[in-house]
């Protein structure tokens, strides 16, 4: 699945985006119907709430060869489940620092709050995040890249 993102040649960076059902997925949908252009390096995973995203999911994404992981949910205070995104914010703060200590560049993991009305913001987030991840290049945790580096 991951191999198909951004064309078949494998040179493009791959980004996994966890989008909350109520805000960011609707925001992505709005970006689509509004025809805002954004790069095709992103694979979306719709979750009911970003609070359901276990840090394991993020680890798994990198393990499966993603070069960047985006988590996008409702703005603080707007969570459909009232406080689900509080947990996201706390977990994310810890997870990013943990990955940084192990040597994964900070820029590969991003948290954004995107509401259902912010189609333009969603497109902009994807554009800037893709640029950032492209600048970092393929993830050192990619299995194929790893084999290349170690050889």
């Amino acid at each position, binding site marked *: 699945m991951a191999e198909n993102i951004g064309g078949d040649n494998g040179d493009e960076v791959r980004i996994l985006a966890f989008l909350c059902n109520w805000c960011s997925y609707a925001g992505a949908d709005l970006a689509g119907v509004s025809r805002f252009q954004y790069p095709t390096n992103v694979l979306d995973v719709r979750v009911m709430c970003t609070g359901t995203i276990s840090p394991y999911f993020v680890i798994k994404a990198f393990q499966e060869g993603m070069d960047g992981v985006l988590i996008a949910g409702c703005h*603080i205070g707007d969570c459909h489940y009232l406080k689900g995104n*509080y947990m996201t914010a706390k977990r994310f703060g*810890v997870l990013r620092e943990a990955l940084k*200590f*192990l040597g994964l560049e900070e820029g590969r993991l991003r948290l954004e709050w995107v509401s259902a009305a912010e189609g333009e913001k969603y497109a902009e987030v994807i554009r800037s995040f893709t640029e950032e991840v492209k600048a970092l290049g393929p993830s*050192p945790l990619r299995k194929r890249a790893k084999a290349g580096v170690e050889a």
Partner: protein
Amino acid sequence: MSDLKSIVREKLRDGADAFLCLKNEEGTVLPALITDADSPDLELVEVGDSRYPLGKILIDLLREYPDKRFAVLVRGCDERALVELSKLEQVDLERLVLVGVACSAEEAAACGCLRPYPSDIALGEKVEAAPGREVIDEVESLSDAERMAWWREQFSRCIKCYGCRNICPMCFCKDCALEEPHLVEPGVIPPDFPSFHIIRALDMTGRCIDCGLCEEACPAGIPLRSLYRKMQDIMEDKLEYRAGESAEERSPLSFLGSEQDIEKLEE
């Protein structure tokens, strides 16, 4: 240790149904559960310099005997573990009598935890120690790519014996993520970098009480303690929480919390 022996007798007389500590059987140190003052094991009990996660045994004992009270010998780390386990609803402090042992100066210096003594000391003298930060400082002086290479090298020695998890006083889950085939591929040694070790590091965040038994148990000499120590530093820095310190305050990662916590995080 005649001192410990009289304490065991005293606690058994004062209402504890059993006393959990360590005994030395011809040079082999084992956990011992003393249930009456005439027990032959009482002659073998000792404080010694061995450590063992007695809290793990207590989790099972308290469940098995819901109407019994247990006295237990605790060092500073054991006490922190029990405090944290109680907040995670694994032990009932109300049914425990903690008998505190302060680590000796040599033990404290060799181990290097933040608080090598329990809050209430029955045996030994309180000494302070300074946690070693050499590994953390070394890693932090490296660039991202060098850090990853450094950890990759460390973790490449892992033989996936699960010793770190099995000895850990804070690991009690029935289903362990480390045995989840989607996260950690079975039969692969060393385990996939970095999933195995990141999963453990993340699960230790806000939970590890810095006893260092993991690193002692690791046959490959992986600096696990420094990794988990760093996780606690991150936890303190981001969420102002350090595991094992307060009996009431729970880890911010175990409940949703208030908007103010999040605002602080975003600053």
